[in-house]
């Protein structure tokens, strides 16, 4: 049982945390649409986005079975490295104060203002535009969730636990969002992105290595070691990148 969790745990956790971040971002836009035009176009757009995502998964999912395992591991590993290290770099730069933190309240205000401006310009087509905004948010953020689920789950046949982690995150965020009717601005988004960046980078190194024929010591447990190294490197990078600013202060 413990061995099973050591195998499945990192996959479920990575899918859950990454999906949490994406779901929070999608929710912000859906709520902005609902605030400006009501729940009908917001819900219609979101449902349509989920429908297209389901079609993409149903259409492309079975094709994964035809890709040779080493090639799949290598392709997924490289994409995970690009995706995870991009997230981690951005989270480090935000934590070090080099770029601004992502603010859901600000994103909500910006989206609401843009929709209101569209009210003035295209009053007759507004419901369609509002539905489209909600559709795009769910589709684009959902594509990221689908990629993460495939990336962390497909290499070892763990798509079901990864999907369960992602689904739990999406349901949690949707539940909170509909209960409070506000964007989830208090979610520590950068800390989550930091953690997810660390985990996805660790998975990326692991799968790329497996794809190249590397037999990692400790097999799947090596992922935990890689995550610890990326975490240490990330925290070190934050502290180094912060230093010049601290020294510049009087």
């Amino acid at each position: 049982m413990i061995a099973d969790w050591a195998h499945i745990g990192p996959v479920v956790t990575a899918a859950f945390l990454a999906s949490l971040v994406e779901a929070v971002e999608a929710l912000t836009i859906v709520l902005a649409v609902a605030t400006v035009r009501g729940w009908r176009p917001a819900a219609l757009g979101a449902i349509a986005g989920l429908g297209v995502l389901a079609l993409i998964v149903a259409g492309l999912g079975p094709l994964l079975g035809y890709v040779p395992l080493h090639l799949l591991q290598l392709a997924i590993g490289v994409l995970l490295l690009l995706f995870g290290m991009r997230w981690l770099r951005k989270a480090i730069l935000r934590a070090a104060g080099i770029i601004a933190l992502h603010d859901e309240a600000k994103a909500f205000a910006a989206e609401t203002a843009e929709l209101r401006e569209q009210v003035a310009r295209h009053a007759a087509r507004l419901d369609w535009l509002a539905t489209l905004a909600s559709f795009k948010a769910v589709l684009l953020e959902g594509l990221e969730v689908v990629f993460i689920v495939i990336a962390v789950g497909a290499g070892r046949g763990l798509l079901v636990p990864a999907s369960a982690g992602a689904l739990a995150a999406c349901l949690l965020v949707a539940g909170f969002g509909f209960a409070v009717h506000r964007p989830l601005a208090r979610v520590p988004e950068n800390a989550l992105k930091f953690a997810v960046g660390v985990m996805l980078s660790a998975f990326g190194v692991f799968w790329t290595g497996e794809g190249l024929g590397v037999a990692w010591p400790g097999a799947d447990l090596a992922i935990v070691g890689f995550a610890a190294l990326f975490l240490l490197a990330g925290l070190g990078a934050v502290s180094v990148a912060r230093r010049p600013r601290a020294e510049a202060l009087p």
Partner: protein
Amino acid sequence: MNTVGAALRELLGLFVDDGALAAEILAVVMLAAAAAALVPDVPLAAGAILLLGCLGVLMASVARAARRR
């Protein structure tokens, strides 16, 4: 059509934000692949290049961004 274009741009943006970082990651992967092909008896050499290379590339990218500030 706009939505399809936005989805494709978003898809590309998932993986490439800082072009230099993406290019360096791919270079590390190619170096590791070359090591795996040239020294197949020591597969951990490719693993070490991959792991240390990725950590190095990340630190270098952050340092560059901090200097550009």
